[in-house]
């Protein structure tokens, strides 16, 4: 505390000193003004406003002020006609400032901080002002022992104010100039309020002006400690500070809430943006899957668990007696048979009861809706993200001009004070340099086109062969597995052949493609896209072969089902007939058959679900094992065997692994396709996927940092990873097809799942419409489903798409045009700036020659017209011939003209003069006064 109060005391001293200085200089320059200053508020007000303007222009640089004051005084000797514009100017300045302060709420945070400081400071200024005034009254600029007293007073006041608010730290942080200025502004405003009646303005303008002034006075009088708003003001300032602080904290909090941001940044700084783009994609996928998970579990799984019939109550929820012996075996469970199969994870477990529980939850309807909603939501999110990314991508226009120079001169972040962060920054600078080098090399490469073309064709040919081969292999394996399905004596290999082959293909083909792709010598970024496309085709082939095989299986099961359904019904009848026969008692009802004994159908939906879950799980296993063996084990071996090996393992073969972006991205996309397809038949799949993504985030981040080395040619990923999104969208569409097909065409199993007993799955919607909604809605829907309506609707949509497309094309075109124009304007401005500088130089010389005519405008030619316009509106008294005054007046107006909107207090007549009619003065700031623009080059913008 002693430190603070001391400092404040110190500052006070200086404040006084400044005052002294000011009055000193005043007296030096003109005794007249000195006399006038303590005088009454009539005419003596004017110099005050002058002072204030000076303050604003040069709050700290007092040297220049004196000189200017001289000219100012010279001005004040002129006609009273000048008063009007000048006062106006002052008012405008005030207004501008007021506006600025008010705008501060919209400003960026930092500015807010600044402003806040100032405001906080002004709260205290008032008190100091008081003291100072007292002092000024008593002994002018004396400063001596009495100061000590004042200081003490001051301290007392300060300590009392501490209770008001804890802004005392701001006490030291204000400058006396600002305080002074503010006070004078308030005075000025008050004066305006008092004299507004006399102003020759229109009523509307007066009212507007009056309101502004009053608002200003209200706002700052409190700050200066005069009005009753002092306490309120302090309170307001405090609350404002708190609020801003809260906002800032909240902003920080929001940033820390972005999951894995730090991890990803760390990876990015070491491995470049391309690897980071994978992790960003992974994070995005996790977010989307969390929503899907919420939908599925919240609306299907949990209601079923809570309100549905318990396990063992009905056949579909019971393990059949034949399987019960092995139902808990590990191997069976790992195949998702046994208890897993008859659990809430799969389609077959759900009952077809229309409503369950007390809440009459319509589970079948909800099941269907969630299935459709999953796709709807995914589509929406993917497309929205793509659109957003495209938006971001278009933002930066002109880079590439000084890439290396900027990297060289501006890449270091000077605020880094933490060693670890600095390491990361080093790494990222290095990486970004490497990225630029790669780009640069690509640009400068001259190539043999014919050879390159030949090689590219060759590479594509080879890759197509690979794709065809692998597709056939999968088809073959699927056929074989169908044969195996009818046999029981299967070895482990034969059981898992399909998954193994697919995983193996996924393992072998991508590196093969990569090797082949080296023939092509694309830029790594483009090569990555090709690679992605090819592996995507591979996976797609796999996926679709797998799907067609699955459909074969499903059709077989459907056949089988029919006979079983008959058998089941027959068995049930037989059971009851036998019961009555044995008991000879037609009255007694037979006890129901034990649910595990009922003959049941194959339930193809569950079978499909199990296939997908198995595929997903084996995919997870393969991915994780690959990382563990391919990366981790390799890294360990290379690292530690290197001590006792014939050649340098780290530098030459095999070295450390690189992070395989394409493989990982596609693994993710493909996996997501599995989830989308399988989620309808196995609601638990989404949960498994969420776990997978979560673990893989940590696991892969660790693996990449611990075991991989950056790519030899680190390249910059395109800013939007829209290519990934595009792949995702494609696979989403492709996985949508089979699911919708099954929902719309295949009959659901008769004894399992929420839709059992219906001819088609979507009948559940019809049922709801018929039973639960009013009748007219049903007819409405039937109308809506009429092809006569649907076809026009589709047509309309197509037309709309066409229209929007062409509109966006047009916008793109316009955008390009505008960019070109902007570039041109920039060049032009540059040229003009150079030119005006030179002319200004000339003007300066001229003015130096003619000291008395120093107020000559810098650019004479366009003036006469503007001049006339001004005179017509404003000062008819002035004759066009009287050069000095005329020009001065004209210049006055022209100075206020460039930005008419921001200066409401200017009483510019609504004449025909355009704002930019005076190119010579157009660039001068609004704050400059008459005669001050002497030899002044236009400010840099």
């Amino acid at each position, binding site marked *: 505390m002693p430190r603070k109060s001391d400092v404040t005391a110190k500052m006070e001293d200086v404040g006084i000193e400044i005052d002294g200085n000011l009055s000193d200089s005043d007296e030096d320059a003109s005794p007249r003004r000195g006399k006038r200053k303590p005088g009454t508020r009539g005419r003596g007000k004017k110099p005050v406003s002058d002072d204030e303007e000076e303050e604003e222009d040069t709050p700290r640089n007092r040297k220049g002020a004196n000189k200017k004051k001289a000219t100012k005084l010279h001005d004040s000797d002129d006609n009273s006609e000048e008063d009007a514009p000048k006062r106006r100017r002052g008012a405008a300045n005030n207004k501008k400032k007021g506006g600025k302060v008010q705008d501060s709420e919209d400003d960026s945070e930092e500015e807010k901080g600044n402003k806040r400081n100032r405001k906080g400071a002004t709260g205290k200024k008032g008190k100091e002002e008081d003291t100072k005034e007292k002092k000024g009254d008593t002994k002018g600029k004396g400063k001596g022992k009495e100061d000590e007293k004042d200081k003490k007073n001051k301290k007392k006041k300060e300590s009392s104010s501490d209770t008001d608010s804890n802004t005392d730290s701001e006490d030291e942080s204000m400058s006396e100039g600002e305080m002074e200025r503010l006070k004078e502004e308030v005075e000025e405003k008050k004066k305006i309020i008092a004299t507004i009646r006399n102003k020759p303005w229109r009523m509307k303008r007066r009212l507007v002006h009056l309101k502004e002034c009053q608002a200003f006075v209200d706002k700052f009088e409190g700050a200066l400690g005069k009005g009753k708003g002092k306490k309120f003001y302090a309170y307001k300032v405090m609350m404002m500070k708190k609020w801003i602080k809260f906002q800032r904290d909240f902003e920080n909090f929001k940033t820390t809430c972005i999951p894995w941001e730090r991890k990803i940044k760390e990876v990015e700084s070491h491995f470049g943006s391309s690897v980071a783009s994978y992790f960003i994609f992974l994070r995005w996928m996790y977010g989307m899957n969390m929503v899907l998970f919420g939908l599925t579990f919240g609306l299907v799984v949990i209601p079923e668990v809570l309100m549905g019939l318990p396990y063992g109550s009905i056949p579909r929820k019971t393990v059949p007696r034949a399987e019960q012996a092995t139902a808990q075996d590990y191997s069976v469970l790992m195949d998702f048979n046994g208890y897993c199969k008859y659990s809430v994870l799969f389609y077959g477990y759900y009952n077809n009861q229309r409503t369950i529980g007390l809440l009459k939850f319509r589970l079948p309807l909800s099941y269907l809706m969630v299935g459709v909603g999953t796709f709807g939501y995914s589509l929406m999110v993917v497309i929205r993200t793509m659109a957003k990314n495209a938006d971001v991508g278009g933002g930066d226009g002109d880079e590439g001009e000084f890439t290396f120079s900027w990297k060289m001169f501006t890449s270091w972040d000077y605020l880094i004070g933490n*060693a670890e962060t600095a390491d990361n920054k080093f790494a990222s600078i290095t990486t970004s340099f490497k990225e630029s080098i790669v780009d640069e090399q690509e640009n400068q490469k001259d190539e043999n086109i014919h050879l390159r073309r030949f090689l590219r064709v060759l590479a594509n040919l080879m890759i197509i062969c690979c794709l065809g081969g692998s597709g056939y292999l999968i088809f073959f394996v699927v056929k074989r597995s169908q044969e195996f399905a009818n046999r029981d004596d299967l070895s482990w290999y034969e059981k898992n052949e399909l998954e193994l082959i697919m995983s193996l293909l996924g393992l072998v083909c991508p590196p093969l493609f990569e090797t082949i792709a080296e023939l092509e010598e694309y830029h790594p970024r483009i090569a990555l896209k090709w690679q992605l496309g090819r592996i995507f085709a591979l996976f797609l082939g796999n996926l679709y072969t797998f799907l067609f095989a699955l459909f074969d299986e499903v059709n077989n099961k459907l056949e089988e089902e029919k006979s079983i359904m008959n058998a089941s019904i027959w068995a049930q009848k037989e059971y009851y007939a036998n019961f009555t026969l044995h008991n000879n008692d037609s009255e007694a009802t037979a006890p129901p058959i034990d649910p595990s004994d009922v003959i049941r159908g194959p339930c193809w939906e569950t079978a499909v679900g199990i296939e997908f879950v198995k595929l997903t799980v084996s995919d997870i296993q393969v991915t994780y094992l690959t990382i563990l063996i391919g990366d981790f084990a390799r890294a360990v071996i290379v690292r530690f065997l290197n001590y006792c090996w014939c050649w340098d393992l780290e530098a030459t073969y095999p070295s450390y692994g690189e992070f395989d972006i394409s493989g990982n991205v596609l693994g993710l996309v493909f996996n997501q396709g599995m989830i989308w397809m399988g989620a309808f038949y196995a609601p638990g799949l989404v949960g498994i996927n969420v776990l997978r993504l979560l673990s893989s985030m940590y696991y892969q981040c660790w693996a990449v940092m611990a075991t991989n080395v950056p790519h030899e040619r680190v390249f910059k990923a395109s800013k939007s990873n829209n290519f990934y999104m595009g792949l995702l969208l494609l696979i989403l569409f492709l996985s949508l097809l089979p699911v919708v097909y099954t929902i719309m065409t295949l009959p659901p199993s008769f004894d399992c799942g929420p839709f059992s007993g219906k001819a088609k799955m979507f009948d559940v919607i019809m049922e709801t419409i018929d039973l639960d909604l009013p009748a007219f809605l049903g007819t409405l829907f039937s109308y809506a489903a009429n092809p006569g309506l649907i076809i026009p609707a589709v047509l309309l949509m197509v037309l709309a798409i066409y229209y929007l497309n062409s509109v966006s094309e047009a916008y793109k075109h316009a955008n390009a045009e505008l960019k070109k124009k902007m570039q041109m304007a920039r060049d032009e401005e540059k040229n003009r700036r150079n030119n005006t500088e030179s002319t200004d130089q000339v003007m300066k010389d001229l003015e130096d020659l003619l000291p008395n005519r120093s107020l000559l405008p810098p650019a004479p030619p366009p003036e006469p017209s503007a001049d006339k316009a001004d005179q017509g509106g404003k000062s008819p008294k002035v004759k066009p011939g009287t050069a000095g005054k005329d020009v001065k007046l004209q210049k006055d107006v022209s100075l206020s003209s460039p930005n008419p909107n921001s200066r409401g207090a200017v009483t510019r007549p609504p004449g025909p003069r355009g704002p930019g009619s005076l190119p010579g003065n157009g660039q001068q700031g609004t704050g400059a006064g008459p005669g001050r623009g002497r030899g*002044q080059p236009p400010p840099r913008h």
Partner: protein
Amino acid sequence: MGSRASTLLREEEIEEIKKETGFSHSQITRLYSRFTSLDKGENGTLSREDFQRIPELAINPLGDRIINAFFPEGEDQVNFRGFMRTLAHFRPIEDNEKNKDAAASEPLNSRTNKLLFAFRLYDLDRDDKISRDELLQVLRMMVGVNISDDQLGSIADRTIQEADQNGDNSISFNEFIKVLEKVDVEQKMSIRFLH
């Protein structure tokens, strides 16, 4: 500490610094207490070691250059005046200063002076040109040994090629300004000193 700051700092000195740098009184006293806290030798001047204790400068690859910028040629001590003069480069440009009469001497925190400060960081031999060797040195500081010398050389060449306009294979101050034309130097090279 603050009491010492205010007692050691004479009013006339504050006034002069104020005139020279444009800092406000409270800023000066504040910075003075910072100065004294950095001054481990307690002799009223700062040495290079004092600066190197600041973590931001210790980590910064260009830290030595920045520290050098505080010291006048050939000296290895800097007093408070010199300290403030260097810091004045980083004073934010205020709105009302922008339109100021530039016929008077340009303030230390003008765009040009800010850029000149940055330029000096790279211009080791003070010949008002950044040569290829100087660029290479900076690069080596910034990327360490992670990039081969060849590549560093090509980066330096590229940089010069981008920026050089008069073909003397070095970057002059004017060219430097041109390169950073679109960088918001006024904002980036400003520190918000507490008022």
